[in-house]
């Protein structure tokens, strides 16, 4: 699936849909199942998905988003794979605020792109940002129901005149 295909589809990715890559499935997911701008993307290693799960506290991660993000981070953070386990361990120890990662700039840089990629679909510095995903990002998935990603409709004309539906429960804090 290309990124352009992603943005054309009218169906939103949310929850445990087929395109969401649970950790266990990802471990045996064959490489080459996703493409980005015509480029075949490798399935991220389990260590990367574990890191993503830690950063999101276990939110489902869209498979194409994970593949695009891993490819992007690999291209812009040399030695990414060697830092995955260390960064995961650091996040588990930091309890929700990664500000102290500033003492480890190589980890902080990866983490900034990782978090921005997962929740905003954007990586890179302000002057040279890269869009790696849109509809499938975690921030939109979190508010699915009351809100739809901009440019997508949540229902028929006037559907917003009824009260916003309730949100799905979040994974328990770990």
């Amino acid at each position, binding site marked *: 699936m290309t*990124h*352009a295909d992603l*943005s*054309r589809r009218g169906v939103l990715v949310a929850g445990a849909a087929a395109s969401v890559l649970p950790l266990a499935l990802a471990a045996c997911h064959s490489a080459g199942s996703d493409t980005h701008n015509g480029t075949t993307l490798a399935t991220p290693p389990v260590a990367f998905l574990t890191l993503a799960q*830690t*950063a*999101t*506290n276990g*939110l489902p991660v869209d498979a194409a988003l994970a593949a695009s993000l891993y490819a992007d981070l690999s291209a812009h953070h040399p030695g990414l794979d060697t830092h995955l386990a260390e960064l995961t361990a650091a*996040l588990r120890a930091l309890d*929700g*605020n*990664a*500000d102290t*990662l500033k003492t480890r700039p190589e980890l902080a840089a990866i*983490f*900034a792109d990782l*978090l*921005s990629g997962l*929740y*905003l679909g*954007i990586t*890179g510095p*302000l*002057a*040279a*940002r*890269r*869009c790696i995903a*849109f*509809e499938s990002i*975690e*921030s*939109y998935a*979190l*508010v699915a129901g*009351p*809100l*739809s990603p*901009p*440019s*997508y*409709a*949540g*229902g*028929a*004309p*006037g*559907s*917003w*005149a*009824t*009260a*916003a539906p309730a*949100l799905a429960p*979040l*994974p328990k*804090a*770990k």
Partner: protein
Amino acid sequence: MMADTKTLSADVVVIGSGIAGGLAARRLAADGIDVLILEAGPELNRGEIVERFRNSAYKGDFMDAYPAAPWAPQPKFQPKDNNYLIQMGPDPYRGMYLRGTGGTTWHWAGQAFRLMPNDFRLRSLYDQGRDWPISYDDLEPFYTEAEYEIGVSGDEDLGSPRSRPYPMPPVALSAELETIRTTMGSGRYRLSIGPQARNSVAYAGRAACCGNNNCMPICPVDAQYHGGISVERARAAGARVLANAVVYRLETDARGNIVAAHFLDPDKVSHRVTGKIFALCANGMESPRLLLNSADAQNPGGVANRSDMVGRNLMDHPGSSVEFFAKDPTWFGRGPMRPASMNDFRDGAYRRDHAAMRIDMACTNPVRTLTERLVAKGVYGDALNQQIRDQAAHYVLLKSLFEMLPDPENRITLSKTAKDAWGIPRMEVHYRFPEYVNRAYDACLTDFAAVAEKLGGTGITYSKRGVYDNNQHITGTMVMGADPATSVVSAECRAHDHANLYIGGTGVMPSCATVNSTLTGTALALKMASHIRLALG
């Protein structure tokens, strides 16, 4: 300069294909008049714009989905200023507009307010600014025509008397906004559904709004009107449209009539277009740029500039804002972006002292902005998930637009040294926010605080005094007036200095009040078209 290689001609040559030029052209063509529209930028296509938005790395930049053609550069300020407008200060003027068929209303919010009668008499009533040479009643028929052309939904006149009802019933508020409306009550902060160029029901072959909440930068379903629709309707009525035609000079004869417009094509080849009448509708920046660039021995200060008013009196709406989290869920982002506002204090004796103002509920989906802030702080995991949800559910953004006054020192001039890639001088912008606006900011703080208190707001954050956002309501640079010594066009939108040059759109407005300018600019363009019809006999 390149030699002319080709000659085109029309009874009426319309320069600029935004909503003003497009609708004026459509009106004239529908009457059987031969019309040619010249547009500097390319043909714009909705599907491509939507696609670019979704793939954009700068989704908060409304210009990012509209890449400029090399021959038709346009202002862009993210990720950094492209310096198309040369800022001369002391304050910034970050006006953004699109050059392409349909113009800037591809990315407006669709707010289609009329001015109020007193907005036309600012000098007489409040000893500020300028009076118009026409009254509200003079413009009212054209407001009505504009509303029915573009399709405006609304429910109350908001102090602007109407000869006909709105073409459509109002767009519904979200359930959460209805609750806020009840909370605000019937006093000063009464919440009104704003008039919007947005279909509440199917209208003129276009679908009803289905709440995509992406009015800016692009409505993906054309439920919100834009100038591209005007252009298509002009075409259907028989007008010819020539995109990628960068008009850089108007040529006059010995009697002062405009005899030709000269444009450059994408190969930098120059062409000459003749016509009986020329209608300049290239917005409040590019139109005066063209007039100033047309200076010659006969028109040493530029075309239509005997008064030295071309490019002066630049106005917009400096905006202030407040953000907070309300006690009850608000879910901004449900429905269209600018559905409601507080309008009952748009006029009053206070305008002797400070700028007119009103307050908008800025119902843009806030999730991206809020998430950016949290991510930048390094929040992650469960804390991030919880805060995104909680903040998005309770977020409120109020914006107030302040009325600028027509100050001749706020102006655009042509750079003597800097040119764009097609060799046309770039614009220098001189701009200062007056104390008149700063005093409105002070007054508005009281209103912001009162609204926040009524909604149980916490985490209240005000924008700073003297630091105002721009709202792309470019007005005043070719001001309308009765006196040729102090104005550029007459009440008929005809240049005082040239019998066959007309100017339409927001650039001729002598005052900008506190409401979005597009409907007034469109009404003026239709008024202009009516006078052109009469002039052609």
